[in-house]
């Protein structure tokens, strides 16, 4: 980037590569390229795990099938068909073919359930996870901002101490343990929620429709999962918001706004809130991955039939085609969500957009 500016003469005539630089320093484009690169990287890692690594998935399947009495040739054909690879090609051709198949949305067939297409399974379960994870992130974000601001405004009072300690404890406890505690408290000790009835994402016989019954049933199945995943991540949001609000409260423009006699509510929303929230938007990226990753454990704990549950199930059954497909889709979902968070950040903070990204 510096090369083109250094080579260009100080005259008014722009460097012939200036247009290239303008494109590469475009914030949105940079992020888009980064996202595509990440997806490519993960696809490649998955390919190596599936095919090229010593002790890879295809080898394991071959061993398992021959041990089960299938002839070596049949085993080879079967494994190749399920994973969607051609074992007679050289590895790099298999790799290219693999990339093309992933682009086409072809993720192979299930190893344990005959005739089940991995992509069809994912289309069925993914919406439930996107719904629960998205809702959880939204609630956590709002709750974290509000409680963090309350902590900052009441700095060094008992409210602050109480909330700070609560947030630190929640932050230090894993979602899985919070989930177990929730089952114990709600299901066993207080007996207030029938945990067993909440299996699945919907009760049998309920059809998706725009009706009260449908939404009530969706909520019934997701409520404890939602509560646990909010509790598991709200702590770090609260602490981040607290420190960023305290930092913003010390800024000159806040003092100036006070001196001008602006009402507190206006200072809180337009001056402090807006600026203090910015660092949290960057945290969103980490939080999306964390919540998606945590969904494997939480969804299987509550038997919520989302994509996390499906991954855990595939792992338990060693259903490798489903495993790789679900893993790919989870990662792509997280990368796309990150891209969205980046765009949001660029929109909220013009400095990022104009300065051309960078760190």
């Amino acid at each position, binding site marked *: 980037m510096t090369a083109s500016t250094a080579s260009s003469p100080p005259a008014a005539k722009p460097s012939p590569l200036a247009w290239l630089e303008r494109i590469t320093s475009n914030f949105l484009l940079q992020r888009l390229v980064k996202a595509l690169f990440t997806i490519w990287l993960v696809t490649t890692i998955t390919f190596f795990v599936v095919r090229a690594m010593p002790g890879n998935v295809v080898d394991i399947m071959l061993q398992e099938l021959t041990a089960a009495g299938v002839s070596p040739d049949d085993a080879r054909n079967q494994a190749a068909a399920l994973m969607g690879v051609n074992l007679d090609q050289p590895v790099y051709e298999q790799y290219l073919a693999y990339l093309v198949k992933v682009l086409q949305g072809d993720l192979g067939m299930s190893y344990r359930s005959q005739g089940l297409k991995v992509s069809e399974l994912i289309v069925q379960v993914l919406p439930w996870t996107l719904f629960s994870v998205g809702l959880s992130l939204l609630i956590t974000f709002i709750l974290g901002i509000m409680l963090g601001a309350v902590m900052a405004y009441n700095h060094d009072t008992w409210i602050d101490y109480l909330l700070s300690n609560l947030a630190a404890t929640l932050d230090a406890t894993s979602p899985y343990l919070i989930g*177990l505690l929730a089952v114990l408290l709600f299901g066993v*000790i207080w007996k207030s929620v029938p945990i067993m009835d909440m299996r699945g994402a919907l009760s049998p016989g309920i059809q998706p429709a725009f009706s009260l019954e449908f939404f009530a049933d969706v909520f019934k199945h997701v409520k404890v999962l939602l509560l646990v995943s909010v509790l598991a991540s709200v702590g770090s949001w609260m602490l981040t918001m607290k420190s960023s609000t305290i930092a913003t409260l010390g800024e000159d423009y806040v003092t100036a706004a006070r001196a001008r006699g602006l009402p507190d509510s206006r200072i809180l929303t337009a001056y402090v809130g807006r600026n203090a929230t910015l660092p949290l938007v960057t945290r969103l990226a980490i939080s999306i991955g964390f919540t998606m990753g945590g969904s494997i454990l939480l969804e299987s704990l509550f038997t919520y039939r989302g994509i996390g549950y499906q991954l855990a199930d595939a792992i338990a059954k060693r259903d490798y085609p489903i495993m790789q497909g679900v893993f790919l889709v989870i990662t792509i979902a997280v990368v796309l969500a990150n891209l969205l968070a980046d765009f949001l950040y660029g929109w909220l903070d013009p400095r990022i957009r104009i300065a051309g990204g960078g760190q």
Partner: protein
Amino acid sequence: MNRFEGLASLGRETWKTFKLLSRNKMGLFGFILVVVIVLLSFVGPLVWPPEDSANVADINQGISAKHWLGTDFQGQDNLRKIINGGRDVITIGFLTGILATLIAVSVGSFSAFVGGRVDTWLMDLVNVWLTIPKFPLLAVLATVLSLKDIVTLSVLMALLDWPGLSRQVRSQVLSLKQRDYVEAATMLDLGTPHIIFRELLPNMMSFIVISMIFTMTQAIYQQTGLVFLGIVPYSGANWSVMITAAQRRGVLYNPQAMWSILAPMGAIILFQLGLVSFARSLDEVFNPRLRTSV
């Protein structure tokens, strides 16, 4: 130069740190908690060896004078299992923490020192790596590799865990590089190893230790999750295995047997709480700006 002098000064520094630490009640509490749990897990099994037979008469009992933390689905004493089940969990935590920190410090300081295009590329790669959800990747890799022992598991977790830390190490090194004493050492031409090991690292020690502790807590949780998913060998007395075993037996829905799940959970949470409050107080010990406030 003089190794003994170095050791003596290290001893003095440790004592000073401990004295500073004892001023912070929360940190001291955390430190003592960690030491007690580690001692109990490594020395305790010699005094209270694991029970090797089931006691059919005492299955799933609540707390009593005889069984302080109740008994599990095999009638074995929960407290005794807790004492015997800490070693693996703690070892995995320490190993992963140390390995991940080592890689992170090497890569982070290398990136900061080399600078330029290598630095940009490395950090771009780290940023990309950070967007990949780690736990699903860990779960898939651990399944395919079918890990047998805790050392390989720790190595795998460390290989996945270092990037975030290396980014922080890099920014620390970049800011320390601007300090006068480092510039003086550079001008005296003392060599990069001297600058890294004698000037930079000692000043980053608190930060490194704190990050290591947080990596440890992460590793312990990840291990708990892997056991729950049935990826990591489901054998031996181990806090995570205790939780999963109790849960698979439906103990979660049997109020009387709740202690079989509460006890290992409590052990993990107490250990993590100890680690985290110790780490937080270290921050205050080493960062004078934090000592007066909060």
